[in-house]
């Protein structure tokens, strides 16, 4: 190379490299900003017209041009929270089993299988949901005694399609995310914590409880990561929730979510206001998931910064690699 020995030109080549690669990196930041900007621009019509009332109104009537997003927010929160209630204990159980109890031979296969749950396309979950899960839920609903059916939690026609089916599918989809983070976080608990507990005569449960308590921040982060996934999940939910924009406390009532209404109605939205209202729902979904994910990453990072662990949410690619180097 001609510039050999010339400090200045080698330095400028390095600067060129930095700028050259930096431009691509900047593009990544640009995309995130562009999402925020374009969604705000396209939602502006609806934001101006309805203001905050958009989020308080239950009326969703495209024909008369009235749009209120409350039923969708309700459905999204209800299904996601319900899914977390089901998925969190199971995820922690899996994480504890793999990290603390499983024989070494089983560990890798179990990690692989649980992470396979994250790799199955959501459309496949939806298909399975429609043809297998929904009929199963329907038969549960019809077999409930009449006394129970009168409770608001179980009222409504036994369609199978509805909140319970959606929450179950979401729970299955969220488990791999929460459990893999919980597992990593448990691994980062210093062995001295456990050894100390055992030395004091603790049983296995008590020692693990101490480790779980030590790891609580990261585990909450993992649960929130799952929450972020559940909030935005579209296809599997829309196929089993019934797509009915009506607020109900019942597990069996068909309801709707923010992601589902966009998927269902976006191509049908004939006029500007209708489209704009849907984009506004998308904008809020974007904002909520951004906050939830950032918070979850912050919690996980504060827990695992000593042992470098990827929390990008790319469960099956980077994470096992990073985890194994951290462990080895």
């Amino acid at each position: 190379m001609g510039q050999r020995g010339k400090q200045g030109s080698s330095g400028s080549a390095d600067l060129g490299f930095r700028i050259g690669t930096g431009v691509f990196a900047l593009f990544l930041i640009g995309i995130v900003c562009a999402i925020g900007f374009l969604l705000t621009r396209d939602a502006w019509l609806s934001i101006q017209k309805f203001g905050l009332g958009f989020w308080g109104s239950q009326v969703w009537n495209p024909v008369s041009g009235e749009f209120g997003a409350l039923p969708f927010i309700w459905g999204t929160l209800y299904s996601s929270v319900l899914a977390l209630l089901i998925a969190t204990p199971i995820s922690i159980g899996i994480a504890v089993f793999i990290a603390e109890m499983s024989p070494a031979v089983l560990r890798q296969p179990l990690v692989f299988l649980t992470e396979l749950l994250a790799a199955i396309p959501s459309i496949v979950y939806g298909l399975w949901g429609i043809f297998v899960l929904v009929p199963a839920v329907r038969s549960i609903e019809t077999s409930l005694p009449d006394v129970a059916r009168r409770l608001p939690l179980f009222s409504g026609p036994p369609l199978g399609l509805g909140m319970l089916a959606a929450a179950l599918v979401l729970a299955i989809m969220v488990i791999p995310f929460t459990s893999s983070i919980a597992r990593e976080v448990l691994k980062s608990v210093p062995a001295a914590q456990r050894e100390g507990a055992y030395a004091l005569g603790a049983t296995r449960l008590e020692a693990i409880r101490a480790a779980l308590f030590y790891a609580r921040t990261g585990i909450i982060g993992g649960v929130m990561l799952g929450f972020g996934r559940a909030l935005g999940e579209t296809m599997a939910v829309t196929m089993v929730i019934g797509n009915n924009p009506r607020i109900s406390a019942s597990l069996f009532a068909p309801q709707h979510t923010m992601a589902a209404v966009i998927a269902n109605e976006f191509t049908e939205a004939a006029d500007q206001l209708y489209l704009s209202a849907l984009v506004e729902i998308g904008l809020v979904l974007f904002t909520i998931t951004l906050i939830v994910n950032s918070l979850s990453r912050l919690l996980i990072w504060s827990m695992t910064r000593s042992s470098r662990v990827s929390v990008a949410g790319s469960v099956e690619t980077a994470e096992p690699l990073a985890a194994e180097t951290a462990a080895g």
Partner: protein
Amino acid sequence: MSAGAGWRRLLSSLFVGFCACAVLLALLPLALILFFVVSQGIRALNVDFFTHMPLPVGESGGGMANAIVGTLMLVGLAGLMAVPIGVISGVYMAEYAGTRFASTVRFAADTLNGVPSIVIGVFAYAVAVLPFRQFSTLAGGFALGVMMIPIIARTTEELLLLVPGSLREGALALGATRARAVFSVVLPAALPGIVTGVMLALARIAGETAPLLFTSFNNRFFSTRLTQPIASLTVQVYTYAISPYQDWHRQAWAGALVLVMMVLFCSLAARLATRRIERMHARG
């Protein structure tokens, strides 16, 4: 005292039982999903599925040739867009790790990774459909590409950081510029891993439906034109699944089987490749 200890020991074994049950509870749906997809899908999966076009309602048989070609094109376009941007952003994050800009890029990548796919669809609609007033293959490829970039960027970063520092230092000590050290020494060392990561990302992206609903839309006919709407396996499975027709349901299961096989194959291949890379690194 001994009664208390017995109680504690009982609780402890109950807890072990609970954890084992949790594993079974998670593996049960996995087994059920795989069972149904395989047993239902295999019935409609034949050569016709790959070589024939969809038939109108009422005629049984037919296939998804157009959707398979569509998915391949969409995924190809996404890869063309995401691989260069993702890999080079990953290089930046790894090379300048610790700088504020690199942290910002990492934050952006993780944020983008967490954006719901339906929102990516709305974004791609605003960028690539609205200005041209036309659903198109390009718009669909763009949407998938946007989803792929952060996955590839983060994978590249992780893998570059695994390459032993001595390799880079050796290159620099021989008088190589930073660009040279990265592109002819560090990046090649991490290449097998990056290729694996890209394959996994492609498999994951091929299973996406939501971002395609209003970008590449759907097409009943065979098309390879970039500026026209195009069919894809996932959207086709969705359309068929929510239809009231038995024949279409069978086709949907077959489509799901193809999707699952693809994901399974890529995951397993990646798993094996990852293990080999680790062994290589372990040997030094």
